[in-house]
Each structure stands twice: as C-alpha cells, then as structure tokens.
C-alpha cells in the first residue's frame, strides 16, 4: 500500500512536467524503493549512484561549511540529474531534459520529496 502511494508520487512527478524524463525514490543504502525510469536505465546502478552522490553531497556541504545540503545537481551536456533528500532515509532522483525549466522542476521535485518523506 505504502509502496503504491510512493510510486504514485513518482509517477505524478514525471507527469507534472514534460521536462522530467524519469525519477526514482531510493533508500540511503542505494536500493530502489519506487521508480519510473526508462528501460535503458539500470535501476540498481541508478539507485546506488544516486545514494552515493547525495551522501557525498551531504559530507561536502558540511565540510565546506555550506550548511544542510538542499540538493545535488549534476549537469551534463544532455541534461540534468537532481538529487534531493526525501526524509532521512531516502533520496529522490530526478532526471531532467537539457532544455528543462529548472525552477519549476525544483518546485515539483521538492513537493514530491516532502510527500515521500511523509509516507516513509
């Protein structure tokens, strides 16, 4: 039941914007909780790498006195990956197309992360 609700948040996020290509909720140990990823994406790899990036982001923000980590953003020449805490035990990973309007994506992603955190 809870898993379905979390997956529903992920699907709603993907549908909220044409700029969002895929998204997933991942535990801080790197295991996928719910996902809406393309078939070409390896869920295990996406999960482990996303969790790793957010952990490193947390540590880096603390080490460099940047306060609490809000998000990690990876910018490639084909688009973005956004990583946000969804509560203390999970990570929201959002894959965004190159032309994406990041302001709106950030808003939608933060709402989704809060919704998932409330469910977990």
């Amino acid at each position, binding site marked *: 039941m809870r898993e379905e609700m979390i997956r529903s948040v992920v699907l709603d996020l993907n549908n909220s914007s044409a700029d969002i290509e895929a998204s997933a909720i991942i535990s*801080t*140990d*790197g295991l996928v909780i719910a996902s809406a990823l393309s078939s070409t994406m390896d869920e295990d*790899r996406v999960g482990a790498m996303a969790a*790793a990036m957010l*952990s490193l982001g*947390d*540590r880096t923000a603390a080490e460099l006195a940047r306060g609490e980590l809000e998000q990690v953003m990876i910018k490639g020449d084909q688009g973005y990956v956004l990583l946000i805490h969804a509560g203390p035990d999970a990570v929201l990973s959002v894959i965004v197309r190159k032309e994406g309007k990041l302001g709106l994506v950030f808003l939608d992603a933060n709402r989704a992360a809060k919704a998932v955190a409330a469910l977990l």
Partner: protein
Amino acid sequence: MSEKPSDIQTLTHISGFSSEDEEHLRHLGQYLVPRLPELTERFYGRLLADDRTRPHVEGRVESLKKTHIAWLTELFAGDYGETFMVRQRRIGEVHVAVGIPPLFVAASMSFLRGAFPEEIEIAAREIGEPIGVCTGAVLRLLDLCQYLIDSAYEAERMRRLTAATGMSIALLENLISLRPLRN
C-alpha cells in the same frame, strides 16, 4: 534450526585447524620461541633491503622488532580464543591507521611460511613430533592470522570510507556488488 557458522568457524573447518594443532603449537613453542628473534632479524633485514618497505620501518626498527617478536611469541602461547582473535584484528586496524598496505602483511606471512619449515623440522625432531603435522599446524595458524588481519584491514578501510563520504557500509557494499558495465 542450527545457527549459520561464523566465517572463522568455516575457515577453521575447511583448513582443519584443531585443538590438536593448538597442542602441537604449544609444544613447538618451547623450541621455537628462542629462535624467533633471529627470524625477526632476518625479516627486518629483508624489509630494510627493499625500497618499498624500507621507508615504513627505518628509524623505528628496534621497536618494530620487539612488537614483531611479541606477536610471534603469542602464536605459540597456545591460546587461540576470542582474545587472540581480537588481537589479530587489532593488528589489521593499526596497519591501516599507520598506512601500511595489505601487501606488506601478505609479504610478511609469506616470509614466515618460507622460513618456519626449516625451524619446525629441527624443533619437531627435538620434541619427537611428526614434522609434517607440526608444519601443518603452524601454516594453518598463519592462515588464520592472515585472514583475521586482512578482514580487519578491509573493515577498517570501509569504516574510513564511510566516515569520509557519509555513505553507509550497506551502500558501499551495494556499489561494490553492482554488475560490471557492458562495453
């Protein structure tokens, strides 16, 4: 349902390290322990003669030799319970802390596996025990020690990686077990 055996139990079950081995080691100790300083001298001679190992030991060779002799002596004390195991693991942790790579532990054990048989032959004859049996006991013990030290190395390195990155041990294990990328 029976409990899953520990890694140590599996290791000693397969290697055959037994209470008989422990008895042989205690007997051997009477003759081998006086020989240990000479073995240690030879070992540290090798370390000082090697460009990679020399920087890790020069300037403190005498204190390292004392530690090494104490460790070797303990191998023949006949007590291989939890306290012994904990001490071997601690050696791995200390090696990581001071930056000694696992290669050096492997090389050290290899030196001992090469040097002990000749000493064991003499000692076994003195105490009237079968040379092969005594050699087997010592080699099995060295394997147990190496496993404990290597495991502690691995655990301490993972702990440091966790501390530096914030990634949990479970996450690190998941990253390690990811399928290799297909080219």
